[in-house]
C-alpha cells in the first residue's frame, strides 16, 4: 500500500469512500507520523484517540452505506486557538494553560460533523500575535524546511506555524489556521503549502480565542487548492452565535473549480513593488503573471495608493481590539491566577496578567491601551480606522478594473528562528503584503510558486472580491497547475 501520509484531503476522502483503505488505517498512519515528529514542536497536545474514534465512526458509516461527509475519514490538525470540548485550549499562552473548554467551537464542530477527526492541537504564536512562531509559551515551532547546506532551524511563519509545519512535514494532511493580518498566508508561503483566508464572516468566530475581532477569520491550510476548497466548504457557514457571521449559503467551491481564466482580468498593484523585496520574489511574481496569462487571463495594472499605510493602520487597530479582547483574562473565571500574599483584587489582576502573558502580547496590549486612552483616541485609533476605510476603498476601485489581484505573499522567504527578534518592527514588516486584504476583509490565498536559490519555498498571493472565494481558488488552481510545485523538505525530524 502507498504511504498514506503522502495523501492530501481529496485523495484520503476519495480513497476511504471507494474502499481502497479504511479511515482507521489513515488515522493510524498519521498518528504514528505525529508521534515521530516531536522535534518539530508543531503540536501542543496530541489527540490520537480523537482521530481514531472519528475514523471508526466513518468506517462504520461506510459499512452501513451512509454518506461519509465532505471530510469523511480525513484526520486534521486543529490550531490551538479553537475551543475543543474536553481538550486543553491555550492559544499557546501560559494564562490559558490547563483551560478545558466545556463547549466546541462552531468551526471545529462543522469539521467533525463533516467526518474529520483531530490529530491534536497545533502550536502557534501566543494569542496569534507573531509572524515566526517564536512567541508561544510552549516553545518555537520548527519548519521542516532548511536552507540547502545548513542545519539552522527555520521559521514556519506565524501565527499558524504549527499548522504550516505539520502540513508541510506531512504529519497532518491539512490543518485549520486563523488569519488576522496574514497568519494563514504567510506561514503557508514559508512552507510550500496552500492556505486561504475567506471573506470576513464566512467562518464563525464562535469558540475561537479572540485576538482582533474585526479581522480574525479562520481558514484551511493544505497541500492543494482542491484540498483547501473541500475543507473550506466544511468549515464555513452561517452561525447565529457570531454577530458578524454572513447569512449566505456556502457555495460548492470544490465543484466550481476551474483553471480556465478566459475573460478574467488579473490586477497587478504597482504599489506592491516595494524597496527591500527579495529579487527572487519579484521574479516569481513575473512568473505568476505568465502562468495566469497562459490560463487565459488578461493582466492589467491597478493602483492601491494607500498600501504603504495599511501596516501601520493594522498595528493600531489590531492591538486596540486585542487590548479590549484580552481584558477577559483576569484570574477569576478561567485560566491562571497569581495571588501574591495579602494581595487584593486589583493586585491579583495585575500579577496574573504579568505572569500569564508573554512579552509580545504585553507589548500589543500596552500599545492598544495607549491608542484608545483619553486624549489619543482621535489621533491614533480614529485616524487608523479612517485609513482603513481608504485601504478598503482602494480595493473596491481596483476591482472595477479587474476580477482578482496577484501579488507576492511575503517580501522574503523564511528566515532562521531568532534572526529577527531584536526589533519588533522588522518582524511586523513580514506581513506587509498580507495585511491590506485583512483590513478590507477580502478573501485571499497563498499558493506555492517555486523554491529560491536556498531551496526555500516562495508563495504567490491572490486577493479576490468580497464573497468571491471561487475566483481566488480558480486563479490559485491555474497557478498550481503551471507551477507544478513538488519540492519537499528532506526529512530530518
Amino acid at each position, binding site marked *: 500500500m502507498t504511504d498514506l501520509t503522502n495523501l492530501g484531503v481529496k485523495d484520503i476522502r476519495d480513497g476511504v469512500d471507494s474502499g481502497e483503505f479504511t479511515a482507521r488505517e489513515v488515522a493510524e498512519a498519521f498518528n504514528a507520523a505525529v508521534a515521530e515528529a516531536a522535534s518539530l514542536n508543531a503540536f501542543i497536545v496530541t489527540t490520537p484517540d480523537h482521530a481514531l474514534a472519528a475514523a471508526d465512526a466513518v468506517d462504520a458509516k461506510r459499512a452501513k452505506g451512509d454518506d461519509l461527509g465532505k471530510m469523511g475519514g480525513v484526520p486534521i490538525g486543529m490550531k490551538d486557538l479553537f475551543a475543543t470540548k474536553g481538550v486543553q485550549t491555550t492559544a499557546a499562552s501560559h494564562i490559558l494553560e490547563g483551560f478545558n473548554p*466545556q463547549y466546541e467551537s462552531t468551526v471545529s464542530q462543522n469539521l467533525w460533523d463533516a467526518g474529520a477527526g483531530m490529530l491534536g492541537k497545533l502550536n502557534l504564536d501566543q494569542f496569534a500575535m507573531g509572524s515566526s512562531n517564536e512567541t508561544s509559551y510552549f516553545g518555537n515551532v520548527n519548519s521542516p524546511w532548511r536552507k540547502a547546506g545548513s542545519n539552522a532551524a527555520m521559521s514556519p511563519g506565524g501565527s499558524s506555524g504549527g499548522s504550516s509545519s505539520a502540513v508541510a512535514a506531512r504529519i497532518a494532511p491539512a490543518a485549520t489556521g486563523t488569519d488576522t493580518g496574514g497568519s494563514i498566508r504567510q506561514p503557508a508561503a514559508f512552507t510550500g503549502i496552500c492556505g486561504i483566508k475567506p471573506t*470576513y*464572516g464566512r467562518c464563525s468566530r464562535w469558540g475561537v480565542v479572540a485576538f482582533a475581532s*474585526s479581522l480574525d477569520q479562520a481558514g484551511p491550510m493544505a497541500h492543494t487548492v482542491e484540498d483547501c476548497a473541500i475543507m473550506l466548504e466544511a468549515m464555513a457557514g452561517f452561525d*447565529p452565535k457570531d*454577530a*458578524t457571521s*454572513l*447569512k449566505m449559503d456556502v457555495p460548492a467551491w470544490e465543484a466550481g473549480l476551474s483553471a480556465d481564466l478566459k475573460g478574467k482580468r488579473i490586477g497587478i498593484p504597482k504599489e506592491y513593488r516595494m524597496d527591500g523585496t527579495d529579487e527572487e520574489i519579484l521574479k516569481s511574481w513575473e512568473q505568476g503573471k505568465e502562468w495566469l496569462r497562459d490560463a487565459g487571463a488578461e493582466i492589467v495594472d491597478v493602483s492601491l495608493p494607500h498600501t504603504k*499605510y495599511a501596516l*501601520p*493602520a493594522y*498595528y*493600531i487597530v489590531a492591538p486596540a481590539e486585542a*487590548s479590549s479582547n484580552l*481584558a477577559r483574562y*483576569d*484570574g*477569576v*473565571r*478561567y485560566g*491562571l*491566577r497569581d*495571588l501574591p500574599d495579602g*494581595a*487584593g*483584587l*486589583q*493586585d491579583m489582576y*495585575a*500579577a496574573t*496578567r*504579568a505572569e500569564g502573558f508573554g512579552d509580545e502580547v*504585553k*507589548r500589543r*496590549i*500596552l*500599545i492598544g*491601551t*495607549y491608542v484608545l*486612552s483619553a486624549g*489619543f483616541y482621535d*489621533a*491614533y485609533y*480614529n*485616524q*487608523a*480606522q*479612517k*485609513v*482603513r*476605510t*481608504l485601504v*478598503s476603498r482602494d480595493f473596491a476601485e481596483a476591482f472595477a478594473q479587474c476580477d482578482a489581484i496577484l501579488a507576492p505573499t511575503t517580501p522574503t522567504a523564511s528566515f532562521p528562528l531568532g534572526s529577527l527578534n531584536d526589533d*519588533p*518592527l522588522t518582524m511586523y514588516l513580514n506581513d506587509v503584503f498580507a495585511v491590506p486584504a485583512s*483590513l*478590507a*476583509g477580502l478573501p485571499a490565498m497563498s499558493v506555492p510558486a517555486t523554491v529560491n536559490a536556498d531551496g526555500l519555498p516562495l508563495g504567490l498571493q491572490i486577493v479576490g472580491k*468580497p464573497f468571491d472565494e471561487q475566483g481566488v481558488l480558480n486563479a490559485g488552481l491555474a497557478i498550481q497547475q503551471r507551477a507544478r510545485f513538488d519540492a519537499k523538505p528532506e526529512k530530518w525530524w
Partner: protein
Amino acid sequence: MSVDKATVAKIASLARIKMGDEELERMVPELNNILEWVEQLGEVDVSGVEPMTAVIENHLRLRDDVVDADPKTAGGRREDVLANAPAAEHGFFGVPKVIE
C-alpha cells in the same frame, strides 16, 4: 508623540499588567519605535472619510425573543461556567476580599 517611563507605567496600570522598573525601561524604546512608525498615518488626508465600522456590509440581526433558544449559549449551566475557575466556591467565583 512619544512615551516616557511614567507614561508606560500609567498604561501598564490601566491594562492591569504589573511591571517592574527594568521591564518598564525596556518597554519605553520598544513602544516609542512602534509609535514613531505609526505616526506616518498623520500624512494621510482623511478629510471627509468616515472611520470604518464594518469591514463587510452586514445586517445586524435580532434573535427570536425566546429564552434559552440555543442550549449552547443558554442559562442553567453553572457547573460548566465554573468548571475552569481557579477558585470556585459554593457555586460562585471566588476572589480575594474586596470590602474591608
